[in-house]
């Protein structure tokens, strides 16, 4: 069954509006820092509308090759149909994660233009400013999620960044 939502890791503080930004506006830093594109793409992870599924997205992200410091993670999930109705193009691509069975859950918003990026940002803003479908996973939450996957043999610890492994070893659950 296809997933109805997709998860995006974000920097929530970048979306906080300073006093000079009105309630109808999005801070520029949210776009230029939090929604920084590469090859006109943004990365997302498929998920369902339940906590367990969002944790799967966290697992995929936290076991990516770039993730090397055990740290909190902000996640928001967007409705895929709404993205499509805004004219955003989505494409499934193999994800950067050490968890094999999650690799296929990766998708990208592709062929992004400034207008489309704005639409994507507005979808995120709707969630963020209503505090709807926004999740904070603390450092310990992330550790628990990774360790659970390791104990379930879904994840080979040797594939993780050594620094991340070191951080994990210091966290008692």
């Amino acid at each position, binding site marked *: 069954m296809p997933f109805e939502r997709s998860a995006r890791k974000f*920097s929530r503080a*970048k979306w*906080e509006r300073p006093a000079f930004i009105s309630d109808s506006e999005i801070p520029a*830093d949210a776009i230029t820092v939090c929604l920084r594109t590469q090859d006109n793409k943004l990365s997302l992870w498929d998920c369902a509308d339940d906590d367990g599924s969002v944790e799967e997205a966290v697992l995929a992200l936290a076991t990516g090759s770039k993730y090397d410091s055990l740290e909190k993670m*902000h996640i928001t999930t967007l409705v895929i149909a709404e993205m499509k109705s805004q004219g955003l193009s989505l494409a499934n691509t193999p994800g950067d994660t050490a968890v094999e069975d999650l690799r296929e859950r990766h998708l990208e918003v592709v062929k992004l233009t400034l207008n489309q990026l704005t639409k994507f940002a507005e979808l995120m803003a709707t969630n963020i400013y209503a505090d709807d479908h*926004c999740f904070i996973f*603390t450092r310990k939450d992330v550790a628990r999620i990774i360790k659970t996957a390791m104990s379930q043999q879904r994840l080979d610890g040797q594939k993780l960044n050594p620094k991340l492994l070191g951080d994990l070893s210091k966290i008692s659950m």
Partner: protein
Amino acid sequence: MGEAMQLRQHRQFREIEDIGTTTSDIMPNSVVAEVKNQYGLEGNVLQFWTSCSANTAIRSDLPLAINAAAQSISSQVQNLAVILVWSSQSVQLRANIRPVERTNRSEPITLPWDIRTQDFRDQFYSQLSYELELEPVEDGISHAIERVMQELLTKSSLIGGDWIKASFQRLIEENKEAAAAGLLQCIGRIKAGALKEIIGGLVSQGLSHSSAQVREAAITVVEQIGDRDLTSLLRRHSDSVPWLNLYAEQVLRDLA
């Protein structure tokens, strides 16, 4: 044993004389001039050490004065070894009249940059701000400034800690909040023992800052380091932004 006595016991400093005392942040030119005139010296400083006994009260701003003084003198005096000693009330600049040989002194401070031509503390700050502007700090992903800070702390834990603290203050003063938040977050990541003395002050300042990203970074430092003092700082914090308040509560729960 007094500081002066400790210093005089080092063979290479037998001829040290106190040449000036000031409580200002920057050594006055008159002190530099006095050294130059008294000893007829010209040129650059070869080395300098800082020295303080473990129980000496250290004014937090003095390292800035030390750097400024060393740089000021470096452009005017040759073959001069300078020691800067500080107490809670004063800064004393002591200098010898002969070139200093490397000794067995336990912690000679090797300055990371050429003090003859650069304002090295400013250079460190510039490097940090440049890296932070080039690549904003992202949760979970290492940042280049972690390596920069670690290298500095390896060269001198005392000066390194003070420069890092000064850099944070300067970013705040210059309203570079995103960079200040990034720096604070990375300070939490490197978990250097040398930063133990300053981390409480930085977290406290971060938690009371008007910018949500600086406050979030401060909470993240508490989460990373999680010692009792930092936890109590966070326990006393109540945030006006609901999600930050929730994050702080979750961190306290995790650290309990």
